[in-house]
């Protein structure tokens, strides 16, 4: 059985939860299981569609729903062999090279203008590739074939001459990144995701060992613009499960800089002020946005373009943000079909999907 075909485990109903740091405990509410499950089966996961899908979940109040969905998504991804940046990174480089070779290299426009050209790309692929740390510059060889597993590179030397190089070791490419992007950050030294809390919460998972040891940036949690990183962390530390022996939701987040050294597998997107990342996402697969502000800051962010989005929207928020959301959703409707999702949502919760128009 492939990892992405596993049955979605449920949180044990004997679990109790507390949202005030352990002072008050409640029987496991339906909405907690619902959001963990939403994170595990996020939009576009099962269908494996290439186009972005957006799911908006309406909640009546502030909640830990986004964090719960993030934990669900992390648990799912550590069991998924496809949740690995290595392959995605090489895919990204290949797409970049293809765009350069097939389109941008021979484009007649002196200034890149995809809207005018109607080429379908977001920006120009210059063909330049950089190597992290050494800062060596390369250029895609014009005779490379996009179908080549490893394309040829031209090394650019300091006097401006382009010298062909032949690099057959694929590992070398993990350190390369296209102009305007970032290097793959992988294999943080010797750490390992602690699987026990996930097992305690969700039953025995079947994780991919490499995923437990390898950094990943395909999954993002975007905090509300009202909170910075520290406040979001503190907020999520207040949500506890009885079966975790006092550990909190915040403790489960594998976010760089949020606790003991571990392998980062969840990027925290700080939307307060200028958007920043706990580590740079490389073609992320899913962004979980906590609130309208986080959603609006992420939906058009170039580093998150193409990622599926699961946004938790509270109805007791400010009216002006509602108006911004309304405007954004209206503009999305030229590319997406709005569909109300009839799923077994808890009372007071509704779900709307934006699916790309075929």
């Amino acid at each position, binding site marked *: 059985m492939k990892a992405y075909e596993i049955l979605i485990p449920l949180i044990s109903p004997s679990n109790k939860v507390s949202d005030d740091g352990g002072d008050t405990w409640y029987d496991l509410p339906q909405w907690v299981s619902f959001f963990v499950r939403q994170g595990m089966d996020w939009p576009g996961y099962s269908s494996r569609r290439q186009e972005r899908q957006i799911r908006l979940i309406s909640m009546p109040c502030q909640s830990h729903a986004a964090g719960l969905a993030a934990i669900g998504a992390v648990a799912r991804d550590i069991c998924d062999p496809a949740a690995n940046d290595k392959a995605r990174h090489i895919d990204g480089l290949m797409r970049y090279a293809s765009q350069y070779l097939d389109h941008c290299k021979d484009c007649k426009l002196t200034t890149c203008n995809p809207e005018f050209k109607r080429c379908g790309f977001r920006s120009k692929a210059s063909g330049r590739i950089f190597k992290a740390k050494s800062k060596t510059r390369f250029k895609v060889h014009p005779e490379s074939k996009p179908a080549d597993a490893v394309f040829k590179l031209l090394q650019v030397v300091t006097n401006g001459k382009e010298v062909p190089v032949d690099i057959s070791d694929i590992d070398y490419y993990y350190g390369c990144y296209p102009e305007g992007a970032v290097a793959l950050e992988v294999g943080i030294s010797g750490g390992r995701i602690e699987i026990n809390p996930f097992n305690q919460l969700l039953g025995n998972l079947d994780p991919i060992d490499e995923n437990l040891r390898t950094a990943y940036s395909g999954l993002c949690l975007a905090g509300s613009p009202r909170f910075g990183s520290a406040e979001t962390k503190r907020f999520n530390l207040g949500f506890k499960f009885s079966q975790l022996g006092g550990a909190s939701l915040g403790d489960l987040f594998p976010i760089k800089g949020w606790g003991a050294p571990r392998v980062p597998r969840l990027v925290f997107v700080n939307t307060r002020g200028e958007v920043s990342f706990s580590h740079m996402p490389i073609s992320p697969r899913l962004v979980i946005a906590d609130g309208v502000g986080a959603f609006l800051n992420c939906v058009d962010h170039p580093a998150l373009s193409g990622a599926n989005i699961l946004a938790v929207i509270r109805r007791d928020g400010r009216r002006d943000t*509602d108006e911004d959301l309304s405007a954004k959703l209206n503009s999305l409707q030229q590319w997406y079909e709005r569909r109300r999702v009839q799923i077994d949502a808890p009372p*007071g919760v509704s779900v709307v999907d934006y699916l790309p128009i075929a």
Partner: protein
Amino acid sequence: MPILTNQVMSLAASRPVYFFNKVGVDFLPVAELRRCLREMAYDLDRDDDRQGALYRSMFALISEIQVSPLNFDEQFCAKVEAIFDGGVADEITWGRGVSERFARAKSIAYDLVGELNPLVIELIKGMRASVSSGHSFAVSCTSRDRDIIRHIMEEARLPAAPIVTSDADFSQLPVVDTMFRLGPLLSWGRGVAPAAILSAPRFSTLVQFVWVGTSDDSDFGDDPLNEFERGNDRLVSQVVTWEFKRHAVVVEWGKPILQPSSTVVHAPENDFEVFRRERGDLRAAVMIRIDNRLGVLWPPSSLVVSYAPGHGLDEQPVVMQAAGGLRPGQYLAYVKQVGDEGCHSNQVTEERSTLWKSALSAALTSDSDALKRRLELAGVRISSLAQRMRYWAEPPSTVIHAPQSEEHFRVLCHELGLNSTPAAGRILDFWRLAWDDIRLSRGEAISAGVDRNEAFDRHLLVVLEQRLTESPQLQINGERVSLELPSMRDGEVMKVDLYQVQALEDGFRAPINALKTIREIDYFQTQWHQ
């Protein structure tokens, strides 16, 4: 900040239906006072600076009446009086309707002094009932009334309860049994309330106290993801279902109320239909009849220059007054043309209109059906075209009967074979010149000098008064007197007609381009009478 998720979600899980008790308070003096404000505001032209300021102060007052726990005291009277400078809306300046209604409003406000506000009484009753039955509650009101509500609670010896005035307040509200709301649920303005009151309730029952005839905003509670379906008994969205219970409280009123005059009133019964209507709506207008066939629409509180023959010794013969205050027998000064338009002398105009009307008559005589077909083919698609063509062919009088649309007139001239004509060494389109004649005859300004403003009106007033009082004294009688008066520019002349007002008719609402132009009474009554 407390985390209330579990409370809120538990409430949602336990409530398949929420209750919305609407308590409508029927109190005659407040209803009549609101009516006066509505009717005055409905007649105002918001785009006019003078009337716009008045409109805004009325809006502020009616909003306060709607959503605040007002005390009916001398301060309240002063607020009503302060709508007009000095507490007076004289008929000359504002028109008869506004003047009468303002007098009524003031009278009612005085009579209300010392009365308890029934909305507040009902609110206190509701809060006391909650306390005695052991139910928790919160109150939703405007932010500027927070302290007053707190004071009311203290005076009524009620325990302190949360007061919700904003989205931020609502987000921190713990779950309570009942929410009391003072005033309608509005999405903007003074009475703005958090949309979450309906879309994400933290109470099982909402009790709302409003004046009878008031309604919530039709989209209140909707958000980008959830919209309510609104029925008479229920309000249903994907996440919440509300069930209405309506209850009316009639509060007796023993004092007599000044009755309105016979002036016809067409204002909607809902305050916010009047005060929150979109700009660009039709404007209120009175029709000034200038003879048996023609009239002109004018916003009732907009100013006109008028002349009253047989005026008293201490009265000014020429005054600037509200159109709504004109009386039969007075003369309306109507500017027809400012400056010399060259090609538009009366003689040339008459010749030109006679030319195309003769051509039209000839075509109708030879084959009216063929002309009708040609016009229709060319895009003149209007009802009763055959009848209208005969009407257009009538000889010119005060106005030149012609198609209403410039394009239709161009087509008509083309089909009649009336093309270019040499004029002053230039070749000018005949139809264009003839169309300007028609516009002039309809009183439309084709000269920049006819850009009417208060300075222009004051100039008109002065020169008209001079002309009428200089000797030998001009005899003004009959339905229409044409004058040539000096314009604001040196050496320029403006043509002014004095039309005797035959009657004033209320109840028109017309677009701005239909105002201040002379047309057939039938046209106004068919098109713009309510």
